[in-house]
């Protein structure tokens, strides 16, 4: 005699009626640790189990950096056009539209000004979820305008890079954004406005070959991928096995390209400590 008895054979519950846990309650880190998403959020989106820094976007970085999550977003209306009538597996305008719908973002960077520990800071933060954080004309223009804003008002400037590189769908126009943003940073340097580059996972291609490596300090988070050619391309081109930890932020620190690596919870403090020191101001608590 069994404890439970199935009256009818097979599973009779229809798919709609099946009970399921709501999506997004748990996060699984690459080492297989399971973390409650609420806990993850409170821990600056870093897994408390293994210190893994989860990829986050502009919304989360603004929340981390700006006091009380208050900021004014700049140039919210800029959108990409399709100057080359580019088609790959999809038409570029369709791809843009799909990305906008999926991410609720206009393009792969958002720029904002707000108070960080009481002082103004201009931040340009890329979103990887928007076509791989690729840089086209809009990204270039928004970063240049944010730099202009910082320049005019003499506010320290920070770019948070998170990008696969230049956007192929705008071809040479994308490439020229490397020159455009770098030239703008030269103006900022001339005016002696501090510029901080935070390279997050991943920072590759055209971003590395322009603004990401041009900070008064270049900093990063633990375990971020940073490189010019991505690891797959390097492996395929050279036929060589890549050393352990190749192109991680730790690798870049060892090879002299980063000033320091910081845990996300210390990011706001460290950035503001640097700003106070370099501008010879009293340290803020």
């Amino acid at each position, binding site marked *: 005699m069994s404890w439970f008895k199935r009256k009818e054979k097979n599973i009779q519950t229809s798919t709609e009626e099946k009970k399921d846990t709501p999506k997004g309650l748990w996060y699984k880190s690459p080492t297989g640790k399971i973390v409650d998403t609420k806990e993850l959020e409170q821990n600056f989106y870093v897994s408390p189990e293994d210190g893994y820094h989860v990829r986050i976007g502009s919304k989360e970085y603004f929340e981390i950096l700006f006091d009380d999550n208050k900021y004014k977003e700049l140039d919210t209306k800029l959108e990409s056009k399709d100057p080359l009538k580019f088609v790959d597996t999809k038409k570029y305008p369709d791809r843009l539209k799909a990305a906008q719908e999926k991410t609720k973002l206009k393009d792969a960077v958002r720029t904002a000004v707000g108070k960080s520990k009481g002082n103004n800071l201009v931040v340009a933060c890329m979103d990887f979820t928007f076509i791989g954080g690729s840089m086209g004309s809009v990204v270039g223009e928004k970063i240049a305008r944010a730099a202009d804003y910082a320049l005019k008002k003499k506010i320290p400037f920070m770019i948070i890079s998170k990008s696969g590189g230049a956007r192929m769908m705008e071809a040479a126009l994308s490439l020229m954004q490397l020159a455009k943003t770098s030239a703008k940073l030269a103006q900022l*340097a001339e005016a*002696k406005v*501090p510029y901080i580059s935070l390279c997050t996972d991943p920072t590759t291609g055209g971003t590395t070959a322009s603004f990401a*490596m041009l900070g*008064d*300090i270049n900093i990063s988070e633990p375990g971020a991928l940073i490189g010019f050619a991505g690891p797959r391309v390097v492996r395929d081109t050279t036929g060589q096995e890549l050393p352990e930890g190749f192109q991680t932020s730790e690798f870049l*620190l*060892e*090879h*002299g*390209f*980063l*000033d*320091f690596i910081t845990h996300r919870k210390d990011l706001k403090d*460290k950035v503001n*400590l*640097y700003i106070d*020191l*370099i*501008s*010879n101001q*009293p*340290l803020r608590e």
Partner: protein
Amino acid sequence: MEYLDFEIPIKELEEQLDKCQVIGEESDVDVTETCKQIEKKLKETKKDIYKNLTPWQRVQLSRHPNRPYTLDYIKALCGDSFLELHGDRNVKDDKAMIGGLGKIGDQTYMFIGQQKGYNTKTRQYRNFGMANPEGYRKALRLMKSAEKFGLPIVTFIDTPGAYPGLEAEERGQGEAIARNILEMSRLKVPVICIVIGEGASGGALGIGVGDKFLMLENAWFSVISPENCSSILWRSWEYKEQAADALKLTAKDSKRIKVIDDIIKEPLGGAHSDRETTFKAVRDAIIKNYEELKNLSPKELVNKRMDKYANMGVYKG
């Protein structure tokens, strides 16, 4: 505490004193008088030894394993305000050369210096304070950053020399040092250099051109280490003491031949015997010298520095 060979009498007296105190604690014998006598003798012996140090003995003191190193000074001067910065933006982060921003009082300084280790493992990690070209390029990058933002620079010199390695030559050790010397001579911000231990040759000068060049009392500064000098001129390592004499490498001699501006006094027994007093003396020296320099315009600063180096050297005719 570790003792150098000429410090043995001090070691013996300190041990006697310890024993005496133990006896006092463990038995009813009154040892106050004996202790006092030993203390008095200890003080006299210390005075006797440290007031009459030979140049070679000072070289030994400058390498004393307990002597404070660059990061000890920076941490004592700046506390939590120190933010270490890394990398030459080229090939490597050199662990033998460290740098970063920190505050003394209200003023931010860019600190740069060679770093030695305090045990076998860390000595290897720091490459015994011998920087590679990337170390000098890291130093220059940080100096340029300080210049950009108008911040004064303090360098701590403590090196047996730049690293004489194969890769160091490939990457241009000479070029890196030369570039630093040239660029430092025209930096538009005050530069204060302090020899805290060993100041050997080009390796020292690579971060050692400035408006004020100071030396701790038991540091040494010369074109070569006494051992290497002995090996080259006497063709034997045995003559290091004579070489130390001949090179006139002590702080006092350096002041006399006008290659340095001032001497920072060390406590009796050397910098390591009383670190806090040493740190305070260095802090006071930095503040005093910066006060003298801070109101000069960049042009005056550079002109004075150029003049200073133009006047180095002794000749006739």
